[in-house]
């Protein structure tokens, strides 16, 4: 059972998570916050113990044991400028990374655009969904899944998963972890509103693939090159021969 009091004591934010919804089971925390327009408090956090259809990109599923992990979404309803959405994307993975470093001293690595890895295994995945009317994004949800106390991961995966319990060799408080992530996220969000440079640099510092030969896979297309950098909008710059290609999406891995 998630102890809301324990979570609340550690929460140190102005608005992120101040409106907190706890749910046993939903289809997807992202879908619910995005489509139910009566959720209209900025910073609302919806935590579900179980998602019937948790998902990632391309309708990939996100499977998580009930009650052992964290699956939640953060709703942002202030007007968001277009490139800020990408910054929030990178910033969300940074918020998770910092929490894992601060609380459990884990050696965290970020994989473009927003996977969080420990020992080259996936510990957290993030999917952002937004809706725009006209040319303005007016609702944005940051969906975050973290493997916390799940002891093992039977099955086949594209990237081997791991959990904090496996890496830290102990079960941990989900309440403390959630509040730490939300505290970090709010600080990052405020920083991004002013200037993205620091956040982009903090992200770069945790991305071990910059400068490496990588491949980017999307559907049946494979692109090989050198991971030059990310640009000011967060897009991946891939050096292919003498040309730089700007990459918007795809699965990145070492060649």
């Amino acid at each position: 059972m998630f102890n809301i009091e324990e979570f609340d004591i550690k929460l140190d934010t102005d608005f992120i998570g101040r409106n907190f919804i706890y749910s046993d089971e939903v289809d997807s925390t992202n879908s619910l916050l995005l489509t139910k327009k009566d959720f209209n408090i900025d910073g609302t956090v919806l935590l579900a113990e179980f998602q019937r259809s948790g998902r990632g990109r391309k309708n990939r599923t996100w499977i998580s044991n009930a009650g052992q992990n964290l699956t939640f979404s953060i709703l942002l309803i202030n007007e968001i400028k277009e490139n800020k959405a990408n910054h929030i994307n990178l910033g969300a993975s940074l918020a998770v990374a910092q929490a894992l470093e601060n609380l459990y001293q884990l050696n965290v690595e970020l994989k473009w655009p927003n996977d969080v890895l420990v020992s080259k295994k996936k510990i957290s995945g993030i999917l952002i969904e937004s809706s725009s009317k006209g040319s303005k994004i007016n609702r944005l949800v940051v969906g975050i899944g973290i493997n916390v106390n799940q002891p093992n991961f039977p099955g086949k995966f594209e990237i081997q998963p791991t959990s904090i319990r496996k890496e830290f060799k102990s079960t941990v408080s989900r309440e403390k972890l959630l509040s730490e992530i939300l505290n970090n996220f709010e600080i990052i969000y405020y920083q991004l509103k002013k200037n993205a440079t620091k956040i982009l640099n903090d992200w770069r510092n945790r991305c071990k693939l910059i400068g490496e030969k990588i491949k980017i896979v999307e559907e049946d297309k494979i692109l090989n090159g050198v991971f030059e950098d990310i640009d000011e909008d967060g897009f991946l710059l891939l050096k292919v021969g003498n040309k730089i290609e700007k990459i918007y999406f795809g699965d990145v891995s070492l060649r």
Partner: protein
Amino acid sequence: MDINLLKKLIKMVEQSEITDFSVQEGDLKVKISKNTHNAANFSFQTPIEYSRPMVQSNAAIPIVESPSVEIKRETKSDLHEVKSPIVGTFYRAPAPDADPYVEVGDSIATGTVLCIVEAMKLLNEIESDVNGKIVKILVENATPVEYGQPLFLIDTK
């Protein structure tokens, strides 16, 4: 010749209408020329050449074009453009095997979801900001779109 004088001369020519200027002092001849046709020398070349992003090769849903007659009949002011708020890839359906959100000829209301544009791991649903009828879908499924690129034409009459 004094270097400062030379600088002054260049500045003077720069700020004037004069395109060619020459002066001789002893055996030193200075010619300053503003070649206005050769503007390319002053343009900045982008150091990075961006090419198109990765594109899904199997475009499952073909673009549906409305009869051109119908478009000509409309006056421009009745047609509302829905533009992309982000750079990314345009998808007409929520999943590769799902039906498109809208087709040409569909009546739509403010808030109807028209498409998804994806960039990084961000899926942005674009809702209509007007009531009307879809007249034209301007972009093919699973192709890259730029910021502000028109995606749909909607007849608001």
